[in-house]
């Protein structure tokens, strides 16, 4: 049980990490705004929030999948 909590924590941390890195990568190499990076803080914030929403759903997906695997694993043991 302990093990799965660790696995979930690790997966979440890695997902957030990659998502942050990808966000910066996207902002600098193919910015969604026509003005590129010269958009001011408000626009960057809103970009970030919509990106984070995507990440959040991804995390929810990953956590559910892990929980399902955990559940199956637990059942097999019994």
């Amino acid at each position, binding site marked *: 049980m302990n093990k799965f909590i660790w696995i979930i924590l690790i997966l979440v941390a*890695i997902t*957030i990490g*990659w998502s*942050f*890195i990808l966000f*910066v990568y996207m902002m600098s190499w193919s910015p969604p705004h026509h003005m590129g*990076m010269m958009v001011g803080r408000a626009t960057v914030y809103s970009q970030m929030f919509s990106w984070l929403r995507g990440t959040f759903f991804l995390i929810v997906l990953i956590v559910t999948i892990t929980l399902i695997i955990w559940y199956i694993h637990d059942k097999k043991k019994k």
Partner: protein
Amino acid sequence: MRKMIFNRISFKLGILFSGIFLIFLLLLGYMLYGVFSNLFIDYISQELLTRGANHSKALEEYYSQATLEHVILMEENVVTSVIITDPYNNILVYSDPVTNEMKRFIGRTNQISNNQILNRNWNNYQYIVSVSPIKDGDLGYVYMFYPTNVLKEMVFVLKFLIFVASIGIILIAVVLIALLSSIMTKPLLKMKEATLKMAKGEYIQKLNVKGDDEIAQLSKSIQTLGEQLQYFEDTRNDFLASISHELRTPLTYIKGYSDVLIKGLIMDRGEQQKYLKVINEETKRVIHLVNDLFEMSKIQTDHFLLNKELTDLTTLLGNVVQSLTPVAEKKGLKIIFNHVKNISPINLDPHRMEQVFYNVIENAIKYTNQGHVKINLLQDETTTKIIVEDTGIGIPEKDIPRIWDRFYRVEKSRARKTGGTGLGLYIVKEIVRLHDGEVYIESVECKGTKVTIMLRREDVIK
């Protein structure tokens, strides 16, 4: 359990590596920030300067109200603003409303005849400012302003992106470092468990550690240690059993015979003599055993000092052979002692060496049922060799490496008959080692055994 996590080596390693990593990442982030923000400012100031210079050139060529208006028109609807003054710094025209801060930069330029940046401090002022004189200031000045709030916004985005990227990198790095350090220290935890079990008496531990690094080597050593401990445990029990057996037999004899003598049942003088002789023999056996034990414990506690003196080996070996001849003869064995002439004396502890020879020759006699025991004494420039050969039962090949161990005796059943503790060869090896010599054994089962002792001739070496 929860508290223990902070005490773990993996945790400490993780914190250490993450800390180092973090420091360098912060350094890198700060450097990137410095490089890019300064590049921005440089780029913008240069741009401002060129544009100001162009305006002033245009005005220099054709100075009129129309040209002035044209310049103002060019600067409308862009981020930059322009103000043009007459030679006495009175504002003639401007593209955007003139603020107080703008006015503070005007009029500082009386002596200036070059294009130049008046302010590039974007943190504390609202504008980056450049000035270009028209005809060296005779016709007036062109002031260019770039609002720093735009810049601040850009720098903020830069900072923000660096920050976000750093957080991402830190998250991934910390996870990786944590995983790696826990993987790296896992074998250590296993070893800890194993040694704890060993302390409780489960000596044999299986540790499957892959690789050949220091940690793998350590775990191998722990395994060998456990096997060795198990072996000692086993041999100690055997040893105690055989010691008590060895002691009981002669002591029973001694008690029995002395009882008879005390009761005065035997009057015949010859008969009494015989009984006393048995008692004497058995006492010798006990003494031999106790001496062996004593030697062994001395060797093990390192209180074993050698009393070296120049010794004639021929005499020393001769004495041993002589004292053992009756034993050999009793078994019907021939004992042959060959030696070259003029063996020069060598530096050794005669008392200990005598014991070495005694043990080896005694073994040869003990483990030979028919044939002979041959002792050869040879010497060349550097070494003295003592070779003891017998035609006895020999030693199985798999046992040869172990016969030097304490208490090791080949095959209990065959050893029981002959008696002994298995200390003899251990003492031989240790004493020879203390003399810087070498001893080895060659043996073929049922054919015979050959023991070679090599001693260095120190007189030659010196």
